């Protein structure tokens, strides 16, 4: 009989730590390296984490890269599949498992999907946006690939902390001791884009969301509320084929737009654009 040590790491994103268990010391080290400051070393089984995931590692195999992600609810359990992994998660117990090869991309995909599901129930969401904290307030910069999220992040001045250059994490501020004026809080995420650097593990009251448009000058323009809602919805990350939750995400976005200033940020790729972000 072989005894195998179990390694446990709490990956704490958005104030919702997920305790990840693996038998592989190498994979645990890979996770430590990948998630850096998002590993909550104070957390232990029975501690802060409401959620847990067991990792079942399988040998690397040929991946069908084009295989779409599928997220569906079956008998009360989320079944999550992509070409490179299969996962199940039971929202009633907060426990699930992932079967994947030892790579950081698969678990990253699972975490994004799980957080999108958690947030859908509480009025928050993941959105394709860079974000940064300046003067104690968070700013989101939303746009599709190529809109300038990474460019703007690279241009951030020393007094701005980049929360992410790719996927921003937004929650209602109901549990915050000092709610922001907008009623929402942005969290740093380890979900990086071209910057290839995890975000600062910080949270801050959300001041505004800017829709990125590259142009010939730096300027902020007003945006009609309906256009704002449509633009934010286009950038939401949500994968589940679940009509009830899709409806919840829609309501969350409309509520968000009704409270958070949404503007269009036309910008040229130079650092002066940050003079507008105060």
């Amino acid at each position, binding site marked *: 009989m072989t005894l195998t040590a179990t390694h446990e790491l709490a990956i704490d994103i958005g104030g919702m730590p997920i305790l990840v268990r693996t038998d592989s010391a190498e994979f645990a080290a890979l996770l430590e390296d990948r998630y850096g400051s998002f590993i909550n070393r104070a957390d232990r089984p029975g501690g802060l984490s409401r959620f847990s995931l067991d990792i079942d590692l399988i040998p690397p195999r040929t991946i069908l890269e084009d295989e779409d992600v599928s997220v569906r609810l079956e008998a009360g359990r989320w079944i999550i599949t992509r070409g490179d992994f299969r996962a199940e998660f039971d929202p009633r117990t907060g426990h699930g498992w992932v079967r994947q090869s030892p790579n950081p991309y698969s678990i990253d995909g699972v975490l994004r999907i799980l957080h999108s599901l958690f947030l859908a129930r509480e009025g928050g969401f993941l959105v394709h946006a860079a974000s940064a904290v300046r003067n104690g307030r968070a700013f989101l910069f939303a746009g599709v690939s190529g809109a300038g999220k990474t460019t703007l992040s690279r241009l951030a001045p020393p007094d701005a902390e980049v929360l992410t250059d790719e996927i921003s994490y937004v929650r209602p501020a109901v549990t915050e001791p000092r709610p922001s004026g907008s009623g929402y809080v942005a969290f740093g995420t380890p979900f990086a884009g071209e910057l290839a650097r995890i975000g600062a593990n910080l949270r801050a009251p959300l001041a505004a969301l800017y829709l990125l448009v590259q142009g010939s000058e730096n300027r902020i323009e007003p945006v*009609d*509320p*309906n256009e704002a*809602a*449509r633009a934010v*919805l286009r950038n939401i990350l949500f994968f589940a084929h679940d*009509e*009830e939750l*899709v*409806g*919840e995400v*829609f*309501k969350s976005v*409309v*509520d968000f*737009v*009704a409270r958070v200033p949404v503007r269009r940020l036309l910008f040229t790729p130079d650092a002066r654009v940050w003079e507008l972000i105060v």
Partner: protein
Amino acid sequence: MATYIARSKQVAARMLGGEMMIMSPRDTTLFNLNDVGSVIWESADGQTPLDDIIERLCVEFDVAPEVARQDAETFIHELAEHGIMHVSDQPITAEPPRQESK
């Protein structure tokens, strides 16, 4: 023969900037309802005959009955195609069975 219309209970709807915004969760299509659309939407209780709704439109928006009917029928047809409005020649008391999208 009377016509009755009913909002789907599956639809997510929110007021934003003075306009009703609704989404079909089935295909995530978004609709912004103008004043006329909002009245039709709010009146679509499955019990009020369409003729009565059109009469209300004529009074509230000062339009001719034939114009109001054409606008209403176009609007209702579009929403019905997305499964978010139900149409029947009988009062509608329950959500009709779901038709699978093609």
